[in-house]
């Protein structure tokens, strides 16, 4: 039997995973089998290190084991194809000496290059996320599968298809050109954002594992931030995650039910995380290149800094949403802008803005439009219509805790005799 993996070893393996993978790819120039080989090395380490202890050069150990796997793979491939493969021969001759490299300068870039590969626009978001978690995050297929609540075999196929897509589209393992880099970085940040979002759970059952996904997203965003500390949007995304995750403990009750922002016990908010997020944001904003992540982080910070809901600086939030609206065509931003406008100018103003949004086909059938309308109608004193819209939102939401919450709102108002 294997011993449970200590936190120390688990963390070390996840840190080393992209570096080992980068080294193996640079040596063998093939992403897909190299990624498999590193996975096997990680699993071997997870089984052996708890008993044998962490080797002196853990990174070299992983590269060496992965190189052996890679050599085996190339040998069997060559045998299958009935032809010689020089690379395998060379690797067989001197695996130990050349495999144990010291951390080179390109080592750090490897993580970024891997992220650029895994978050390639040719992949669907769910494939990109799965591949990122495995190749860069060092998670194994079973862990990723359980995080997304699908069978391991299904996740394995999804990952292998993603690798196939990368292979057939001929994406090279190298830093994209400068022009391309900005666009690819956006894709990486979006994937990390989705991983965080996926983990920001309220469900009672697999809560712990899914919470891990948020922490994994924060860890990866931190790595990217450390690699590119001067990029204000990366700092903005990391700040956004920290400032949002800080409220985790207050966001649900013991039964896993949602608690809205204005009713959360703010003493449960993680002040250390808030301070870190605010510091990151304060350093990023003056750089003058304000993007959507920094703005969203700024909004989260305004909420986090209010000791009580009544002292929330809504005019500032409204101003931030106005900036964000000019920058992005996201209908959710427009919806939140309407909420902020209602908080500053009264529910009538918010409802007026919602009427305009009703015409957006992306929102017309979205539960959140009904939920917001219900909330504003309630504040305006029109309880009868509020009940109707709470129920309409409950019919449309894809989340069970949210449905329960919306139905409870409707029931509360209906019971009040309106």
């Amino acid at each position, binding site marked *: 039997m294997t011993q449970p993996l200590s936190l120390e070893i688990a963390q070390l393996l996840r840190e080393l995973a992209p570096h080992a993978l980068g080294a193996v790819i640079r040596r063998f120039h093939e992403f897909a089998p190299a990624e498999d080989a590193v996975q096997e090395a990680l699993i071997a380490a997870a089984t052996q290190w708890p008993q044998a202890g962490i080797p002196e050069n853990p990174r070299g150990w992983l590269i060496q084991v992965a190189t052996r796997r890679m050599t085996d793979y190339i040998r069997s491939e060559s045998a299958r194809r009935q032809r010689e493969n020089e690379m395998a021969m060379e690797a067989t001759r001197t695996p130990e000496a050349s495999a144990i490299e010291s951390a080179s300068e390109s080592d750090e870039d490897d993580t970024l290059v891997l992220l650029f590969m895994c978050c390639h626009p040719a992949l*669907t*978001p*769910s*494939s990109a996320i799965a591949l990122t978690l495995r190749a860069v995050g060092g998670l194994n297929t079973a862990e990723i599968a359980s995080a*997304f*609540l*699908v*069978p391991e*075999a*299904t*996740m*394995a*196929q*999804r*990952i*292998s*298809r993603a690798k196939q897509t990368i292979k057939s589209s001929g994406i090279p393992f190298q830093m994209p050109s400068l022009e391309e880099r900005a666009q690819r970085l956006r894709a990486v940040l979006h994937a990390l954002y989705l991983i*965080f*979002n*996926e983990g*920001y*759970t*309220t*469900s*009672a*059952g*697999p809560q712990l594992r*899914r919470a891990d996904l948020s922490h994994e997203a924060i860890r990866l965003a931190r790595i990217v931030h450390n690699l590119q500390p001067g990029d204000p949007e990366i700092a903005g995304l990391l700040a956004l995650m920290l400032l*949002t995750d800080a409220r985790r403990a207050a966001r649900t009750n013991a039964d*896993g039910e*949602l608690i809205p922002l204005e009713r959360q016990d703010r003493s449960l908010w993680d002040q250390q995380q808030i301070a870190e997020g605010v510091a990151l944001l304060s350093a990023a904003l003056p750089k003058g290149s304000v993007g959507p992540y920094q703005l*969203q982080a700024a*909004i*989260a910070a305004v909420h986090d800094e209010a000791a009580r809901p009544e002292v929330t600086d809504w005019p500032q939030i409204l101003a931030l949403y106005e900036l964000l609206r000019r920058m992005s065509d996201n209908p*959710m931003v427009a919806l*939140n802008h309407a909420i902020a406008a209602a908080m500053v100018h009264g529910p009538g103003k918010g409802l007026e803005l919602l009427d305009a949004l009703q015409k957006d086909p992306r929102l017309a059938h979205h539960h959140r439009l009904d939920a917001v309308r219900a909330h504003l109608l309630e504040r305006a004193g029109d309880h009868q219509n509020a009940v109707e819209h709470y129920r309409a939102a409950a019919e449309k*939401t*894809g*989340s*069970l*805790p*949210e*449905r329960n919450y919306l139905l409870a709102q409707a029931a509360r108002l209906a019971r009040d005799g309106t």
Partner: protein
Amino acid sequence: MKYILMMNASSADWNSYAKWSKDDLAANVAFMRNFNKELKEEGVLVATEGLGWPAKAKIVRAAADGTPVTDGVFPESKEFLAGYWIIDVENAEQAYKIAARVSGAPGPGGHGGNIPIEVREVLSGFADLNL
């Protein structure tokens, strides 16, 4: 996002299924086996099961003391779940495409069955980030 694809059939459909020719049955079974394999390979299959014959179906209710009360007499028109697939895809359109594939499973005489497939969203345990 997860969706469940449900294949429903009335008692009459089940009875006519029992009278399909050997070749028609074999073609249908082969189609289903291949369809399941494809879903697995596409990385979208979460779960699939086929259900037993409705002749053994019972509707169960609790009596006042909590003991089970069963009823097994159904009208001919009642629809029974024959089988289901739970899939994890990017959006509803992808779920509809997959449902259409299984709807076209071969029926009697080798013609596409054009079986109605009920597609429903499976609720997730989480709400997306309210930003």
